[in-house]
Each structure stands twice: as structure tokens, then as C-alpha cells.
């Protein structure tokens, strides 16, 4: 089997994402490592959204809800552990933790449950209604976080020491980058397998033609709901990492700006392309860094770029460099 252009481009992108922080490490530029870590984490959030948006055609404008749930899972569990306050005492004691693996599991379960609930309601609608109702649910959770004083309310919650991972000094920037990049790799590998599976074929089908799906005896709703839940879980996992990167979680992770940003990563990089969200997140963060240093209104050129992509380069960055999407 010969490699197509997209595969080669993906390998180049992955190599760049790893090479840049390694070189930065050698040159003693920890800030660049942090930027690369941010790209890996936000790219991973986009990889999650891409399953719903790219493969399923479900334009969720509420994925910040899941990103934030992951973030708060990290923040809440860590704060209880660091303050030696059990989360629950009766009927049995549950303590906080500073172990990332436990935090991730909690983030995955919590986001799956919330996504199941939100999806079961929102997926009965489509088009603009779906966009608006996912937004509404995310805003509900956002305001809930603001008005809940136990975990910092509007001020957010600090994680004084970055949570731990067995055998790794997570406070070392390059080590933490390596961990995030590996998790991004897991998320990408999982979605690559998923879209080629039976479920992936059904999801591609549900995006294209509901009427045909029903005529062959597959309920598109169930397929979309499962995809929505999987999509939310990956985004929440990234959220947990993001809280650890910043050692801070606040309602801004749940806000509609965040939902919009994750969507921008997917669209800039290429909707429904395996590495699209990573390319999009990288471009976004590079622009933010370069233009943001030059003048205050850096989001204006970003907005224009987004407009150009939507109007003239529907396949985003990946589409521009690797040509039109090919299926399975």
C-alpha cells in the first residue's frame, strides 16, 4: 500500500510537534515547550470534537462543557487531596487524588454521563437548533460553575502542584509535554481506528443520509448519540490535561468562547481530517503568539483567516496541503 499525501503530511505534522519542543529543550526555551504542550492538549480537545463535528456532521457549540468537566475533575479531586478534605465521608469515605490516571477516569465517566444526557435531548433536533441547544446546555453548566462557591466560583480553582503520573516528573515541562503528546497520540489512533470500523461506517452514513439509514434498519439517533458521547469523553480528557498545564481551572474553560475556539481548531485544520484539529490548534496558537505580541486586536486577522478558510478552503489546512478527503 502506498502512502497518500495526507498520511505523509500527518507524519510531518507529528514529527514537527515532537521536534519543536525537543529543540526548545536543548536551546533552553521552556516557554516554547509550554506552547507545544498547549497545542497538543487543545489539538486533542479538537480531535474529540472532530468525531462529532467532522465525522458525524454534528455541529456542537457546547464542547466547552466537556472540556471544563475534565478540567474541574482535575481541579476538584486535586484540591480535596491537597487540603486533606474527603469529598464524601458517609456512608463511606471518598478522598481526592493527585493521580492523573484516576482523574482521567473520573473525567471520562463524568463527561460520558453528561454527554449522554445532553445528547439524548439535543440530538432530537438538527441544524441551527442543535447548535443553539448544545450552546444553551454548555452555558447552563458555565453559570452553575460561576455560582457554586465551594470550588472557587467565578475565581476558579488553583492546583498548587501539578498532578502526578507514575514514573514521571510532571513538573518538568518536557516530561509533561511528552505525556500530553502521548495522550494526543492515543486519541488520534483511537479515532483513526474508530472511523474505519463498522461504527465509523454507520457514523459516516448517518451524516450523509438519515432517510437511507432508516430504510436499511439503522437508527441514526443511536449512532449519533454514541459518537457524541465518545467525542465528549476525548474533549474532557484533554480538559483534565489543560487544567494540569495551567495548574488552574476556572469557568472560562466552560464558556462559549472555549466552545468556539475548539470549533475553530477543527475548521482551520480541516473538518473530518484525522490531524486537522492538531494543525488548526497549532496555527491558532502560533498566530496568537506572533500577532498577539504585535498588537492587541490579533483576533481580527484570525477572524479574516477563518472567513477565508470557510469561503475558499473548505478542507482547511489539511485540505489545502493534501487535497480532498477520501473515505475509509
Amino acid at each position, binding site marked *: 500500500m502506498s502512502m497518500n499525501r495526507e498520511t505523509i503530511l500527518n507524519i510531518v505534522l507529528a514529527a514537527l510537534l515532537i521536534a519543536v519542543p525537543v529543540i526548545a529543550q536543548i536551546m533552553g526555551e521552556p516557554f516554547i515547550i509550554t506552547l507545544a504542550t498547549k497545542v497538543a492538549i487543545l489539538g486533542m480537545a479538537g480531535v474529540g470534537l472532530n468525531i462529532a463535528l467532522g465525522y458525524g456532521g454534528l455541529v456542537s457549540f457546547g464542547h466547552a462543557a466537556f472540556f471544563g468537566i475534565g478540567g474541574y475533575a482535575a481541579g476538584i479531586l486535586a484540591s480535596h487531596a491537597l487540603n486533606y478534605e474527603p469529598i464524601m465521608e458517609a456512608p463511606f469515605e471518598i478522598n481526592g487524588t493527585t493521580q492523573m490516571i484516576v482523574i482521567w477516569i473520573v473525567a471520562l465517566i463524568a463527561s460520558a454521563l453528561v454527554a449522554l444526557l445532553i445528547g439524548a435531548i439535543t440530538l432530537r433536533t438538527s441544524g441551527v437548533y442543535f447548535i443553539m441547544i448544545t450552546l444553551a446546555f454548555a452555558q447552563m453548566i458555565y453559570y452553575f460553575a460561576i455560582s457554586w462557591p465551594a470550588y472557587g466560583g467565578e475565581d476558579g480553582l488553583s492546583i498548587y502542584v501539578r498532578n502526578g503520573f507514575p514514573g514521571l516528573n510532571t513538573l518538568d515541562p518536557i516530561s509533561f509535554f511528552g505525556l500530553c503528546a502521548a495522550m494526543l497520540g492515543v486519541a488520534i489512533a483511537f479515532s483513526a481506528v474508530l472511523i474505519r470500523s463498522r461504527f465509523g461506517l454507520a457514523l459516516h452514513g448517518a451524516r450523509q443520509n438519515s432517510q437511507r439509514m432508516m430504510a436499511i*434498519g*439503522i437508527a441514526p439517533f443511536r449512532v449519533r448519540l454514541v459518537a457524541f458521547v465518545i467525542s465528549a469523553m476525548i474533549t474532557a480528557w484533554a480538559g483534565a490535561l489543560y487544567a494540569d498545564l495551567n495548574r488552574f481551572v476556572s469557568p472560562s474553560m466552560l464558556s462559549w468562547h472555549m466552545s468556539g475556539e475548539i470549533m475553530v481548531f477543527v475548521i482551520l485544520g480541516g473538518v473530518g481530517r484525522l490531524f486537522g484539529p492538531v494543525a488548526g490548534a497549532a496555527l491558532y496558537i502560533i498566530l496568537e503568539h506572533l500577532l498577539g505580541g504585535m498588537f492587541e486586536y490579533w483576533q481580527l486577522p484570525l477572524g479574516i483567516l477563518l472567513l477565508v478558510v470557510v469561503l475558499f478552503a473548505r478542507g482547511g489546512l489539511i485540505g489545502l496541503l493534501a487535497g480532498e478527503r477520501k473515505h475509509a
Partner: protein
Amino acid sequence: MPEAILSLSNVTKQFGALLASDNVSLDLMPGEIHALIGPNGAGKSTLIKQIAGEIKPDSGDIRFAGRDIGDLDAVERSRMGLARTFQVSSLMPEFSVLQNVVLAQQSVSGKIFRFFKPVLSDASLLEPAMAQLERVGLADRAEMRAADISHGERRQLEMAVALALKPRAFLLDEPMAGMGPEGSKRLTGFLDGLRAEAPILLVEHDMDAVFALADRISVLVYGRVIATGTVDDIRGNEDVKRAYLGEEA
């Protein structure tokens, strides 16, 4: 007398002032092709949609395979073995021809929620899907995108997808539409053999095909069945001539 696989009794559907189905009763016997003919706007496609479960009749009963299916939706009816084709081809345009059939094959296998094994190297799906494409003469188009094949080929693909469902009855909504004389002839021969596999409720405008294939014909005019009978009965029926055939045949 064997029991009908599909039977409609007094099915009525009204859209505003328009009576699309007016007390329609008809049945489909094992092994038969029952053709449903009538002028444009007679309510043929509306009737197919009610049988397939896409729209609900206002009143009346639909029985399939020995049970009342009135409360089942389109997905459940399809899973019971009711396969329909669409008057305007309704396929997965971005999928290859083969993928369109594989998806149907996957539905029949009952295993949709499998997340890891690659579907397009699964011989248990590919082989039967290819076999259906060969039956309808599309095997050489297997790798083309459904959006890129010709209109007639899309009609053939609709058939292949329906065949893959291994149904207990076919609902074919104008399968010959836009096929051309050569294609129609081939499809007529194909459907002739297909009735042994599962009975066919055939909506069709091509009268040569209808007269060549039908065991029985029902004539629908303004939502009402004005006659049901054999080809000869219908050809000789004065009402039918006046309402419909008079102008065309």
C-alpha cells in the same frame, strides 16, 4: 389460500384538503408481484411511505408478516424485513458503491456498535456485498463513489442495497424511472426472477414492465383503489380505461 405477507385495510391519509389515501385495502401474497399503478399524484408514493413507516396513516391497519406494524417506525419495519427503494435514488453519495451495500449488509448482521475492527477488510461483509453488486451488474463500479456513477447505475445500486437486506418483501418505488429501454428490459428480467425470493409491491409507470411482470395490478386514482385484478382484468376494465389507461395505452 396462503396468508398475505403484507396487507393494508382501510388505510386513509389526508393532507389538508387532499385525500392522499382513501380507504385503501390491498395485500401482497407470497411469491407475487403486485403492481400499483395510477396517474401522477394518485398517492402511490404516499402509500409506500405509510407502508415503510415514514409517515403515519390517519386511520386503517397495516399488517406485515402476521403482525400489526402500525406502531413500528421505519427502522423497526426495515429490520422486520420490509425493504424499500426510493423513487429518487437515496444513497450515501460520498461512499463508494461497495460501501453503500456494505452498510446495509452490516445492518443485517446486527452488529453496528463495533469500534475497532476495520470494516472494509471484513470478508463476512465484503463478500456478500460484492455478490449483490454482481447480481445487479454493478461489480465493475464497486470502487466508484455513488455520486459519480450514472443515474441508471444508481437505480441498480438502490436494488443491490435492498437485496442485501434479505427482505421478506420488497417495496419498489418506480425502479425503472429514468432507466432507458435497455436498462428497463434488463431490470424487468431481473425482477421476474426476484419474486421467488420475496414478493414485490411494485409502483411503476412503465406499462410494458408492469404488464410483463405483474401477477396482480391495483389501480390508484385520487388516493382510492378503483380496481384490483390480473393483467387481463385491468386491461379490460372500463373504469380503469377511462381514468387512466385510456390516455396512455
